[in-house]
């Protein structure tokens, strides 16, 4: 990550976080770095993608949570990504790398709403990679938990 980008990001985040309210719909909340370009995505753009909703408990919250977001496969499909690795990075620079093939049709979503509200940085926003943990013991492993990255703001596609 270069300094220039980081400065932009800090400014952007700082502006966005000025009030406690959700980020304005006009600002990019996600930066997608493709091999040939960098795309910024606003909440509106994300919400325009096919919506997926489900209820699940998580080990970090109390009680069942309702998540609304875009399925990772749909997002990748949107960018025409079919192979390689996906690097997801959080606001605190926590980063993970997941092979494209690991995202399935009933797997992780990129959630932008929890219990009907947009998420702020204080409530693990703006984006949270959530798996349907309750649907299968498959989604109850430490790897999945480690992949469940919150405060996500950057995605990089690697061939």
């Amino acid at each position, binding site marked *: 990550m270069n300094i220039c980008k980081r400065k932009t990001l800090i400014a952007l985040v*700082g502006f966005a976080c000025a009030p406690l309210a959700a980020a304005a719909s006009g600002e990019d909340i996600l930066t997608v770095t493709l091999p040939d370009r960098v795309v910024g995505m606003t909440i509106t753009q994300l919400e325009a993608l096919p919506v997926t909703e489900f209820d699940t408990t998580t080990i970090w919250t109390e009680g069942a949570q309702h998540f609304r977001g875009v399925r990772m496969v749909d997002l990748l499909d949107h960018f025409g990504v079919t192979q390689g690795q996906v690097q997801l990075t959080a606001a605190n620079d926590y980063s993970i790398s997941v092979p494209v093939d690991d995202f399935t049709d009933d797997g992780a979503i990129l959630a932008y709403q929890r219990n009907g509200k947009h998420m702020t940085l*204080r*409530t693990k926003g703006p984006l949270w990679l959530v798996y349907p943990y309750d649907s299968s013991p498959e989604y109850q492993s*430490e790897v999945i938990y480690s992949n469940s990255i919150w405060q996500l703001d950057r995605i990089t596609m690697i061939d």
Partner: protein
Amino acid sequence: MSRLSIKWTSLDTAVIRLGFLATTTGLCLIAIVYLLTDVRQKLAELASSPTDNIQWTLSQLEVEFLEFQLSVQAAQLWATTAAGASQITPSPAPTLADATQQAASDAGTDQQDAAQTRASADLTKALAYVRKRYDILYSRLDTLAHAQLYSQALLNPVLDGAFAELDRKIKDFAPDIDSPDSALIGRLAPIQRALIPLRPDLRYILSFSNLEFVSQADMARLDVAQVLKGLAWVSSVLLAALTALVILFRSLAQVAKKRLQQNLATSARLETIFNTSRDAILLFDPRGRLRNANRTAEEMFQLGSGEIDGLPAGTFLRREGSSGLLGVSGADLFQACNAGPRTGYRLIGRARTGSSFPVELSMDVSNREGVAMLVCVVRDISHQVASEAELTASRDQALAGERAKARFLGVISHEMRTPLNGILGTIDLMAEGDSPTESATYLNVVRTSAQTLLDLVNDVLDITQIEGSDVVIHPAPFDLDQLLNDIMASERPRARTQGNRLQRSGANTLGWVNGDATRVRQVLLNLVSNAVKFTSNGTVTIEAQRTNDIMTLAIHDTGIGMTDAECERIFDDFVRLDGAIALQIQGTGLGLGISRRIATAMGGDISVRSRVGHGTTFQVRLPLPVAHAIPTAVATDHAEDNIAPPQRILLVEDNPTNRFVARRMLERDGHSVTEAENGKRGVELSQMSHYDIILMDVSMPVMDGIEATAAIRAAPGPCQHSRIIALTAHVGDDVTERLRAAGLDDVIAKPIRVRILRRLLTEASTGMTGGRMSTRFDT
């Protein structure tokens, strides 16, 4: 037996052990299944982790805290720099994160205006960064406080609310953080001051939580270890139980094998006993079907080995029923054994060939394995039954003999008493000697009476001979017409006395036939004599008819007749009918019995037809084939009254009366007689002088006639070749044979009659001794 019972006991113990081990194995298996479920659950727990990386998450709290603290310090620095652009103040100690900015600010001191603007922009960025780090820290605290996994450890009472305190204090910064930049700048220093003392607390909280989680993980591991250990224990017990089971099964198998061998040996022995038994052994099922039979049974009932199974008992075991022989049913046999083992049960056995034989059964019901089977031991008692029958028959015979003897004695004593009465009475009259003229009458009475007695004795003798052995028949051609005429001639005087007419009818000329003339005469004479005796003022007719070789001779009379019952008894011995007794007709009751036996012996028979008051017809059928006439010299026997020339006679006789009678008879005819009272004396006398004739009694004391004759014939002496004539009361062909063999020339049966004696002496003196050896006795 005791060995066997020990084996049984050991087997029982083994079975108990087996049960115990099987139970143990079952319990072990249940425990293992339970533990395996537990293990699977634990494995599932391990497979799906309830936690993320705890240590990482916890350490992140400290990282975020420090990041926030650093961002606050950096913002303070930029604030100081911005303020220093108007009044020069020493900059605070640079921090790591602000190295770049510090260098930039150092470079920019020369151009104050530009620096002023740049510092202000940097301060804004730094403040934004503070806000971001605060939000991240805030989120982290929120997560730890709300995630159940962490809150349990962090809100532990031991920490005495340290985390809650920390959480609260940090979240208290939120109004300052959220305030505008100008206000936030003023709050940076107090925040920084507040953060410094929180650091040790944070450290303490995290260390404690870390230990807590480590011990939790340890416990989980121990838990799994505990379950696995239990599993290992139960598995060991199971293994031990299975091993014990294997050992027990082996020993059981050995015991069973040994028992099998014993059973085989026992059954082989039983099989041998079964098959070598002399009695038939049968095995029936409750329906009375044969299930097994031994070899003796196959032979006894002549069964093929293939047809034994399922054969109904009734086909070869029968009983006497009201309508002949009935088959025995299985129910009959089982019922006979109701009160336990049954012996001496008699039935009739029936072989396949149809022959029947008496059998005796010993049987019992065997209740092995809930199925009642009837075991029958069958013995063929044909021999036993036969000997029983024989015994009964001989007893009956003995009784009949007793009865016959009693009847015989009764008849004989009566029939002897009558003529004896005549003799003794007449002798008394003669002894009185009233008048000599009457003595002729008296003598006639005595002779008749004596003759009756002799007849009686002859009859008895005849019946004895016939009873003792078969009647010997000597067939020879004879003139039947002549024989009938002789009989009629001999019976005519008696017929005349009774006022009867004796006549012949039918064919007048029967001619010569082949048969035993003596026996035919005996039979016919008896019948004619009876007819004459039982008829008064009537007619006796002899009728002869020939059919091929069979001659039928019927004797009709018009006498008193008999009832049918009497007709049946008439041929029995010693039977005298009431009519005969009432009419004072003499007889022994033997004549008809003798006649029938003789007729039967000749191949013929005698039958009788009679009506009371109308008469009787006896019919004799005899095979008398036609024969050629044999010309014979006219019998010269009629020169019976010729008296032989005087002879020297030695009379050997032990009885003085007989000696006296014989001496008188001989002396009257002019012979000289020397007496000897026994055989020994006779031999001595014969050695001393010559005698023409020796009359030798047979039964004598000291030396009997046979011995004496042998002695005379053996030793050379004057009488070695003299004629020796036996005098005997024993009569019969065999006696004659024996005497002849002993060297005797002729036999005279007692009583001695003058007529016979004279004839013999005449024959001896005239040399008519041509080997003719027969008993001379008068009938």
